[in-house]
């Protein structure tokens, strides 16, 4: 059987990779994806803890996280579509003004 | 050697089962195309395929050969990895989904090894199935995108939108059944319907869940991109939709994937609403157990008689052979009661699946295609609300009835 620390370490690594992606990707959509990646890493940690403690609440949290992620994706992608429509660019470094 | 076999017996058995299922499914797929073409042809008062082999029975083989031997050009400017990945994904996913379908209640006993008529018996079977179907979208969408051409792109967009939309309705429509069964396990769902075995057909989920069934049927057709929901491959507007740029075997993969998912969905529908392997007659009527033979023997005899008066020599030789095999199987079932008992479940299950496949073809022969906006509004504004209403009603009734089990 697998020690919980392994799961935690894996989730930490995934989280770090997500952060790196968040910092180094220029495409808004990809940055969104990196956020999702971080959320997934956190989920992994949640499940690992719940398994370690033999309790279910961690998995419930994961469900909540997934719901929130879904909502976030819906709204966020709507915003992305608008941005792309108005700026003709998905590069965050080109989208650095509040006004058009 | 034997020790090794004994050591990993389960693994080996599983592998054998997988191979067997794959073979069966692919063959069935092949002959499904023949079946479809024949049925549609007769609906349109044509002959359909009848050149290759008697009654065109070798037509699928010819098609398969053609697919294998045809040149496979890769269009310029495609996104290669995705372009190759997409059909693989579609096929793999649809084939995987078969693994979860149970084909019979009892399990076979060979050399003291128990062999279930099911590859993976998960206690979240249904969820797993939906998970796999959910991933099925990618095949289509990626194919459309990667072929770097506008028709496929549009087809991919359409299909991804359509599948995501109808997946919701599909999932919601079975929730009622899940509530009644209290489990995701397909076997448990069938057993729950078996609770009223003496009612026969009236013990099935079809009746309490009729709303759910209607929603499920429609959503299923849409989910498999079949007529009248085959907008992703609408010839008239999008040439061939997402697989326009695919040729030969890659195209075949999509083709097989589509028919496989048809089978899966039919099986699912059977299990959910039509009592799976339960016979439509009350269990007390034991004489109905001879129905398989009663059906098979006359069918075999008819095939022999028909074969004898066939135009070609080849036919006059082959068809009677097939007929005798079928008739023999029927006779054997009468001779060996144990085999008869064992065959009951699979017989009914396959019979029902066949029926649903016929319905698919029937729809294709009958209905015109939806317009895209109609499709969307239908899915979101009618199907989803109705299925949700079904969930609510079911939950309410169950609440009144008190805790399940």
């Amino acid at each position: 059987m697998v020690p919980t620390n392994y799961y935690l370490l894996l989730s930490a690594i995934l989280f770090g990779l997500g952060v790196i992606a968040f910092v180094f990707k220029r495409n808004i959509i990809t940055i969104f994806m990196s956020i999702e990646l971080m959320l997934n890493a956190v989920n992994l940690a949640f499940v690992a803890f719940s398994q370690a403690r033999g309790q279910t609440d961690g998995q419930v949290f994961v469900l909540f996280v997934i719901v929130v992620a879904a909502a976030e994706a819906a709204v966020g992608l709507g915003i992305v579509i608008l941005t792309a429509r108005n700026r003709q660019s998905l590069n965050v470094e080109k989208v650095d003004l509040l006004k058009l | 050697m034997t020790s090794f076999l004994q050591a990993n017996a389960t693994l080996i058995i599983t592998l054998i089962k997988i191979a067997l299922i794959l073979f069966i499914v692919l063959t069935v797929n092949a002959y499904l195309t023949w079946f479809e073409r024949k049925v549609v042809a007769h609906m349109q008062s044509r002959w359909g395929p009848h050149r290759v082999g008697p009654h065109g029975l070798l037509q699928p083989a010819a098609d398969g050969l053609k697919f294998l031997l045809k040149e496979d050009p890769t269009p310029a400017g495609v996104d290669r990895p995705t372009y190759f990945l997409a059909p693989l994904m579609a096929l793999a996913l649809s084939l995987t989904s078969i693994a979860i379908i149970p084909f019979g209640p009892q399990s076979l006993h060979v050399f003291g090894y128990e062999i279930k008529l099911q590859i993976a018996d998960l206690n979240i079977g249904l969820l797993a199935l939906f998970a796999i179907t959910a991933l099925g979208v990618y095949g289509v969408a990626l194919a459309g995108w990667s072929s770097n051409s506008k028709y496929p792109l549009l087809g991919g967009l359409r299909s991804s939108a359509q599948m995501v939309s109808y997946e919701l309705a599909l999932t919601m429509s079975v929730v009622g059944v899940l509530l009644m069964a209290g489990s995701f396990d397909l076997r448990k769902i069938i057993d729950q319907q078996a609770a009223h075995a003496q009612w026969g057909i009236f013990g099935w989920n079809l009746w309490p869940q009729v709303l759910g069934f209607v929603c499920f049927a429609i959503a299923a057709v849409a989910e498999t991109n079949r007529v009248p929901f085959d907008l992703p491959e609408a010839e008239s507007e999008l040439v061939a939709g997402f697989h326009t740029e695919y040729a030969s075997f890659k195209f075949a993969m999509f083709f097989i994937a589509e028919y496989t998912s048809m089978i899966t969905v039919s099986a699912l529908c059977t299990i959910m609403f039509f009592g799976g392997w339960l016979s439509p007659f009350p269990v007390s009527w034991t004489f109905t157990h001879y129905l398989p033979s009663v059906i098979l023997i006359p069918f075999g005899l008819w095939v022999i008689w028909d074969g004898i008066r066939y135009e070609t020599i080849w036919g006059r030789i082959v068809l009677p052979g097939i007929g005798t095999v079928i008739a023999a199987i029927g006779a054997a079932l009468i001779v060996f009661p144990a085999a008869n008992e064992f065959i009951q479940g699979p017989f009914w299950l396959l019979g029902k699946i066949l029926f649903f496949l016929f319905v698919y073809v029937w729809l294709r022969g009958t209905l015109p295609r939806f317009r895209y906006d109609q499709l969307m509004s239908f899915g979101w504004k009618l199907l989803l609300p109705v299925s949700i209403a079904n969930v609510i009603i079911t939950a309410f009734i169950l609440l009144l009835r008190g805790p399940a089990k």
Partner: protein
Amino acid sequence: MAFALDYLWIIPLLPLLGSGINGLFGKKWPNSIVSFVALGSTGLSFLFALEAVREFFANGQQLVHRHYFNWISAGSFTAGFDLQMDQLTVVMVLVVTGVGFLIHIYSTGYMAHEGGYYRFFSYLNLFMFFMLILVLAANYALLFVGWEGVGLCSYLLIGFYFLRKSASDAGNKAFIVNRIGDFGFMLGMFLLFRTFGTLSFHTTDLKGIFDLAVSGQWAGVHESWGQFGTFTIACLLLFMGATGKSAQLPLYVWLPDAMEGPTPVSALIHAATMVTAGVYVVARSHVLFAHSETAMVVVAVVGCATALFAATIGLVQTDIKKVLAYSTVSQLGYMFLACGVGAYTAGIFHLMTHAFFKALLFLAAGSVIHAMGGEQDMLKMGGLGGKIKKTYATMLMATLAIAGIWPFAGFFSKDSILFHTFQKEPGGQILYGVGLFTALLTSFYMFRLVFLTFTGKPRFDEHHVHVHESPNSMVVPLMILALLSLVGGWFAFPALWGGPDYFSAFLQPVFGAPEAAGAEAAAHNMELILSGVALVTALIGLAIAWWLYISRPDKPKQLAQSMQPAYKTLLNKYYVDELYDAVVVKPLMWLSTNVFWKIVDVGGIDGTVNGIASGARSIGDTVRHAQSGNTRSYAVWVVIGALIIIAVVLFWPSSGPAVGMVR
């Protein structure tokens, strides 16, 4: 049993109510209601004061001291809303309410056609309230409230015609000059508090200022008996306030300008009551002054000097109210002279009589102005005697009184002042001489005023100016005051033939036995002689005036020609205003313009504010670059934040293994 004494606060409260009602609602009301409210409140408080006095006498003239509530209580300092009533208060309260009531009546007639009727009466009632608080107060703090309040009312009323710039300027002048005096007054209060630890006059446990000053049981007793000790300084500071309020040298300059206000105001505030507050304070604090010869001398000299000074100016003024104003100043000088020589009785006596006849003079002058349709220059009058007889008669009586002709009130009071001054050792004779000369001048310029105004040929165009007698609402008060200024002095009548001086006897509990109690008989003879001398002096002044302005009307001009420089000097009031303007006002303006405005305000304050603003802007200008709008930079910031937080959670000593707590 003693209802009115237990509820002394009703006396000031009534005018306050009247003021409030008129001030808040009077604007919409017709004059009749306004005057009803005003007169009603004042009259009621006058009656109530009478009742209080009756009970006071019924109680055997015990000092009444009532504590109503704690007004200020800060640390060791507590000042209660305490009212007290003793003989001095009785006199003051009666004068204030009585004369005030009469003047209210007069005002209803005089102000009938003026705008802001309700405003005028609201102010006037407010003034009554503060004045009563001042005279009833049982501690310096409360007294100061009244003190400042009357100053405020005087400011408001002087500037009553605020559309006239001269009026508002006069108001400002009065206010500012008074501030100087009040500054001294406050310092005096602080010093007293520091010395005695309290501000109340008397307390039941004999811990009040005066009790302590008498008994000498107070901290720092050792260092304060010297001539320049605490008492001297305190008294001089208080006296500084008094000079401001009572228009003594060098702060008298505001009073003549105060004549810009309506005449009743001049009568009530700037003749009868407010300006005498200074005298009242000095008299009230006589216990302190008694401890400091120096202060006494200063008071006496200042008073005497002021009397002479103002009288000389009064000689040549032609504006009728200005003359009266200067005479007021000079009479106040007399009172301070009395206080300075320790004859508080005489001072208060003169205060009372002066209240009567000076109020009368002003009111009569007001009547004259009324008759002349606003004309104030005596050179444009003359021959009015026949046309406005009542005014003429009353004015004449008042003049006789102020000139000190027997048997009018002024004679007795002024006579007792001069007598006590003469008896004062050392240097009393000199002061007496000056006072006597001042008396001569006084009677001269007063009769000059009367003759110029009422006798001789009219010096105005009779067709344009329609001279008419004033309405009864104005004449009746004149008559009452005339009667008072006739009999007001008769308390001291018996003293002439050695009988008791009832007034001083009455005030004795407050001021103690009068000086020179020793040689009664000698003093009595001396007093007779001095009285004669004073009477003769007054008559001489009368004679000169007659000679100059009736028998030889051309003479004054020749005189003015012959001694041009003196005449000019007097006419310009010794150039005092110019002097102050040059010495005080101009430098102050320069200072505030070039230092406080251009350097302190612009450079310092605005500089600080703008500096802060610009600093914020520059900081923002640099920090602004952090907000590049580039999401990736933000992401990095977020990472930094996450790092810090996790590091804190992990490595903070107290927080422990926040992550590893899972078991």
